[in-house]
């Protein structure tokens, strides 16, 4: 172990890099967020979240992210169960098919929904052809939820599939053997054992949904602002970095809360699975 020190030195480049590009930038967000344009300390930028328009955008983002996450769980869980029950040659291929859209460019995926949902878009054209009433979805919160669910569904499917696939089939058999019917087996065994997957799926869907500005911009028109849009505009259009940073601090607070919650649940979950 003589060369231990030399080996440890190999981490130097990354330590420098992480300090320069992860830590310092994050500190700068806090610096800008907690000062005004003259560099004086203030809470005003953080407290600006109380202004109606900002608060509304945060509230809406939370609601839409919550709805999207719930829909994702409801859609992904049965799918993941079916996928994990597949055995044999095709298993890999089928799972691959359901993960593939994740690798398609995010913006193009969202653009596709714009094309489908627009007032004179594909869905409405089909509906018209069938003499059914047109749907007005584009530029409504529903369209944004559509986009979020579509974009982030694979992020829910993957961890659920992984955790369900790891459950020993004999554990399920043991529950049946001890008298549980399929429904009882699901409630008492499968569901609790899949909690870590559910939690990591929730974080992977909730955080990007809460903070997105792309989906809302493309499917919500410029009328519906989420907190992500507000922050983005402060940086790219209004050049009010202090306000943008202040609101980001609020946003980070919510991310940290959701991280802590998932850490607590996951600890329980992992303590049980490992």
């Amino acid at each position, binding site marked *: 172990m003589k060369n231990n020190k030399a080996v440890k030195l190999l981490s130097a480049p990354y330590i420098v890099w992480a300090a320069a590009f992860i830590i310092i930038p994050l500190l700068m967000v806090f610096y800008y967020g907690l000062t005004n344009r003259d560099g004086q300390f203030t809470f005003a930028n953080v407290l600006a979240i109380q202004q109606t328009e900002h608060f509304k955008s945060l509230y809406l983002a939370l609601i839409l992210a919550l709805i999207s996450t719930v829909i994702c769980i409801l859609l992904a869980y049965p799918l993941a169960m079916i996928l994990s029950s597949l055995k044999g040659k095709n298993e890999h291929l089928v799972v691959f098919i359901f993960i593939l859209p994740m690798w398609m460019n995010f913006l193009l995926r969202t653009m596709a929904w714009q094309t*489908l949902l627009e007032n004179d878009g594909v869905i409405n054209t089909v509906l018209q052809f069938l003499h059914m009433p047109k749907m007005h979805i584009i530029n409504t919160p529903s369209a944004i939820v559509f986009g979020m669910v579509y974009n982030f569904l694979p992020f829910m499917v993957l961890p659920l599939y992984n955790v369900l696939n790891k459950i020993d089939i004999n554990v399920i058999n043991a529950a049946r053997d001890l008298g549980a019917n399929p429904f009882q087996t699901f409630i008492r065994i499968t569901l609790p054992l899949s909690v870590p997957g559910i939690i990591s799926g929730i974080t992977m869907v909730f955080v990007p949904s809460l903070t997105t500005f792309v989906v809302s911009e493309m499917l919500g028109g410029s009328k519906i602002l989420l907190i992500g849009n507000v922050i983005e505009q402060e940086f790219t259009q209004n050049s009010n970095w202090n306000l943008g940073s202040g609101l980001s601090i609020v946003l980070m607070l919510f991310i940290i809360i959701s991280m802590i919650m998932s850490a607590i649940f996951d600890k329980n979950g992992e303590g049980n699975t490992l």
Partner: protein
Amino acid sequence: MISKILKRVYIALIFVFLYAPMFTLIVLSFNQSKSRAKWGGFTFKWYLALFSDRVVIQALINTLLIALISALVACVIGTITCLAMNRMGNVSKSILTGVTNIPMLNAEIVTGISLMLLFLFFKAKFGFVTILLSHITFNIPYVILSVMPRIRKMNPSNYEAALDLGAGPLYAFFKVVLPDIWPGVLSGFLMAFTMSLDDFIITHFTKGPGVDTLSTKIYAQVKKGINPEMYALSTLIFISVLILLILINRMPSGDKEKEK
């Protein structure tokens, strides 16, 4: 029997939900008419327009270059960091792991604006280099994530045995350690490469005027109103992703069969 049919139907419905949008884009990319409501006949003209669009071609080149360079740099830094982390004490290791988790757990928009503030503060010129630095930053954690388990699984005696047999540290690294962790490095590289290709948000905040990647180009276009050229682009990207992933998926399964 009924449950089997229900399963099939469910899988089919999700499949339609996932693929209908992409299928629509592919169909529309061959549509003569600019309106998406009408089928105006088959055409390749949007593809031709796309290929003659210098701005799009330049964006494509930028995207690939940034993805390639950032993934390579991230691989080198990430791998040597893993080697060092494996020898570290618990405290410094968990601190470094914690820091590494920040870009992965934090919202992309926050990572994006934090880097933007950094570059603004140092009055850096926004452009290719700032995008590249940002991409390396969010790529390193992915490399560490996929190399670290490999290093942990590696038998430390292998390296020591090589030294014992007279190899120098560098020779031992390239001949003994690297082959052992190679699958991890490779999958880290691929992950970093695709993350970089797919990134929009962080690029959006760290790019300068006139420098675009495909993602930012698409965003700008879509804001102006969708141009059928974009459908052609989607189709091409979809097909390349498909081919790439099929190739990648073939590789490890081939390995497994060899192991058997």
